[in-house]
């Protein structure tokens, strides 16, 4: 791992296509948090991690994309993504793609080893124990599937949220149950997806919290969209927005500047 | 080609083997000959006195009941007392097990004791278990004249006598005793491992006892561990 001149680890931010396109605020929140954790952040030109192709069975395209991503992020000490799903793709599934390839497998494995989901990077790699942020109100937290089950992200966001001044965490019933997003699943099987997210928003409402947080924009858009369709006043944000103290603007799907 | 050859041939083709590989044959022969024990939970490895307590707790957790009797001679009276307490007719069916046949049934008062398999008309059966397993409160019963298998299932109430010293911590200990009794690779027609009374949760997941088998299972643990 290269050590940069300033001795600050260089982090390549993997923005994720949803954050890039829908909610850049999450990207800036991630940058702020990573910098606060003593790293420098760079954002090389990038597109997508390849999940849409991967989960649609197009392995060849996925590999091409993966090779590109691995090459793009080669210069950095760490690769950090504000998404359990995309980080899981980079960290868990990229090495699978190159199984049996003597040239690419070691590169994919080295890449996987330096890649982290944002919140677990802060807590597990950088040893961050608290953040300097305030949030007035109660929140509840949804554990996104890939982050939880592929990467073990569970305690880390809760630990950091506990350090946010004024924030109250109300645990969500069935927090570990899928929200029904599932990438292309939600458009291939819309009725089933809608039923699953319907259960999720009922639990969100039952939690009594004013804001729902999670670590994955796909899930957040799904849950926010369903809450808003049902006329709920519960706001939805990426957990990084709150931890970075950038949760003053409009929430996901809300009118106004984020 | 017979279906047997087709199936075996297809398995071998898929696995890329011939079936004649010495290391594979050795691995299989070794495992069958030595039947290595796997992981035995700590709960199944307690010292004898504690083991009986675990056994009792686990039988009760499975909705069975347990009574401890100091001596085998106490069994007939305990059976009679159980029947009275549950308002059951004073009649039981048992097999030819000498450990049951030799008991002083006359001390149980008006208890009618018949022997043989069940044809479905008996309400209460008394069996003698080959052993018990503490880790899950499981009884092990063997088929045969001594304890006909139908007695385990057809009567409404099943009373099972087990000697305290035959209650092992784990399944593996009882399996070793089975091998000792019948020889390696040999088994009686049926080995019943019974954990609590019959039940079903097939109607709206509501658990109800007595689906097809006994609705009551009462265990008499005799003697000291």
């Amino acid at each position: 791992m290269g050590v940069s001149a300033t001795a600050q680890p260089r982090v390549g931010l993997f923005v994720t296509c949803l954050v890039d396109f829908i909610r850049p605020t999450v990207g800036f929140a991630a940058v702020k948090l990573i910098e606060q954790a003593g790293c420098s952040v760079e954002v090389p030109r990038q597109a997508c991690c390849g999940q849409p192709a991967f989960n649609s069975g197009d392995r060849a395209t996925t590999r091409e994309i993966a090779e590109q991503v691995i090459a793009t992020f080669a210069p950095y000490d760490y690769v950090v993504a504000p998404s359990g799903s995309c980080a899981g793709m980079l960290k868990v599934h990229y090495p699978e793609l190159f199984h049996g390839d003597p040239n690419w497998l070691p590169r994919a494995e080295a890449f996987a080893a330096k890649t982290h989901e944002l919140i677990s990077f802060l807590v597990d790699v950088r040893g961050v124990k608290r953040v300097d942020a305030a949030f007035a109100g109660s929140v509840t937290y949804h554990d996104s599937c890939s982050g939880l089950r592929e990467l073990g992200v569970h305690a880390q966001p809760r630990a950091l949220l506990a350090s946010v001044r004024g924030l109250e965490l109300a645990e969500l019933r069935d927090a570990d149950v899928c929200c029904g997003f599932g990438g292309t699943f939600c458009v291939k099987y819309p009725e089933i997806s809608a039923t699953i997210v319907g259960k999720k928003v009922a639990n969100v409402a039952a939690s009594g919290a004013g804001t729902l947080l999670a670590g994955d924009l796909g899930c957040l858009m799904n849950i926010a969209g369903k809450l808003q369709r049902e006329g709920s006043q519960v706001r939805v944000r990426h957990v990084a927005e709150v931890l970075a103290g950038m949760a003053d603007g409009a929430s996901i799907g809300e009118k106004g500047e984020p | 080609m017979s279906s047997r050859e087709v199936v075996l041939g297809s398995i071998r083709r898929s696995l890329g083997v011939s079936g004649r590989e010495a290391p594979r044959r050795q691995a299989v022969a070794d495992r069958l000959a030595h039947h290595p024990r796997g992981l035995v939970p700590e709960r199944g490895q307690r010292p004898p006195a504690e083991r009986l307590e675990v056994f009792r707790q686990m039988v009760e957790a499975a909705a069975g009941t347990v009574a401890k009797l100091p001596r085998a001679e106490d069994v007939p009276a305990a059976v009679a007392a159980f029947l009275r307490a549950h308002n059951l007719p004073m009649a039981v069916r048992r097999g030819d097990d000498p450990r049951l046949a030799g008991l002083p049934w006359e001390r149980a008062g008006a208890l009618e004791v018949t022997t043989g398999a069940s044809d479905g008309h008996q309400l209460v059966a008394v069996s003698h278990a080959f052993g018990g397993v503490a880790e899950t409160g499981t009884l092990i019963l063997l088929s045969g004249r001594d304890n006909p298998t139908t007695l385990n299932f057809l009567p409404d109430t099943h009373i099972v006598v087990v000697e305290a010293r035959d209650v092992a911590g784990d399944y593996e200990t009882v399996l070793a005793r089975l091998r000792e009794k019948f020889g390696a690779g040999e088994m009686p027609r049926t080995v019943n491992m019974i954990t609590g009374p019959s039940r079903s949760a097939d109607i709206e997941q509501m658990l109800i006892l007595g689906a097809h088998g006994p609705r009551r299972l009462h265990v008499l643990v005799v003697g000291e561990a």
Partner: protein
Amino acid sequence: MSEIVTSPAFKENARAALADVDLQQALKSVEVNFIAKRRASADKLPEFEALRDAARDIKDHTLAHLDLYLEAYEQRLTAAGGQIHYAVSAEEARAIILGICRKVDAKTVTKGKSMVGEEIAINAHLESHGITPVETDLGEYLIQIRGELPSHIIAPAVHLTKAQIEADFRRVHTHLPADRNLEEHTTLLAEARAVLRERFLAADVGITGANFLVAETGSSIIVTNEGNGDLSQTLPKIHIVLATIEKLVPTLEDASQILRVLARSATGQEMSVYTTISTGPRRPDDPDGPGEYHVVILDNGRSSMLGGDFQDMLRCIRCGACMNHCPVYHAVGGHAYGWVYPGPMGAVLTPSLIGVDKAGHLPNASTFCGRCEAVCPVRIPLPRMMRRWREREFERHLQPATMRYGLAVWAFLAKRPRLYALATSAAAFGLGWLGRAKGRFRSLPLAGGWTRHRDFPAPEQRTFQAQWRGRKRR
């Protein structure tokens, strides 16, 4: 069996299931009960996770030596006086079973619960030849009198409510007084017990499945809670075991290891009520038990799964934990899957058995949430294998054309980050501008699947990468 496959209509099935009030009511209990019970029993056993590893390893070892264990099993089984019949296909298995039944001129056959029996549709076959099969597991009996497939591999009638069962009993048990009370769960069970007890005592042949076949002793093992499997095999003259090749385990110790995770994963019991090891026919001196013991050992496509992408699926011990924890199963129930095996295990196994062209929806109808793999007692990587099926479909161009073209356009851009940035910048600007007033959309062209059920957030007009590069230049 092909006439009952409705897997190609998964979408329509699912829609009907979502609109079925009784079904949705019944599914609620799956979501709550099974999960809590499994969790509680796993928590009570500190060695549970290590036992899952052990169970996986035993299955892997057995599959890698399956030919030899099968030969060893056959040898012990025959030595114990049992008869073994190999069946390559479902058709062959049906013919063998019918042949055994005919030899004794069987009128009635009682059946213990067997998913393989469902797989080969043995009941219909026997009926069409004048033999009456009677399912004796309460859940299987309920679906038999309704003419349905099981909706769950361990709780076949989990989709039914008490009221539906009462109506079925009144319809079928016409010999009983019409004014009888059937309002309680207990009275329903008592009636089924009484009706089936008569059938047990009258049966000529009993058919059961097997949870394990033990090579060391030539035994079959079944695990039940009701005791019906035992009455099915003990009372008739003939016991037929119907089992598939992957049920083999080497030794009784190996079976014990797997038993320690089976019931806990399935119902949350420490151990099922009846675990029965059967070896051969009754012995000369036995007062009860079957006079003949036959094992029909079925392949039906499984041997070709060995050594390939789907071998791990053959570890499955049919506990049902994957479906108990599946959000899609919770939403649509088992019948939507359109054949015998529902839920995540069905999504992997069904395409292997009936073809991915028919069962293609099943591995697609998953969010890849990974909860199935997280609870599988033998650690089958179910999501990974569903993805394998999607790869097969992609290779064979089995997916809808719209999806393939959409993916191709996306892939073209995703492989060209500069072009991608231009395209997303333009789209973000356009959508962001259109959505600026409300912050979200209630409908969007080409996104009807999304916006029929939920709003779509308006983007922030400038992508993160555009903003970032703008800031850096400043």
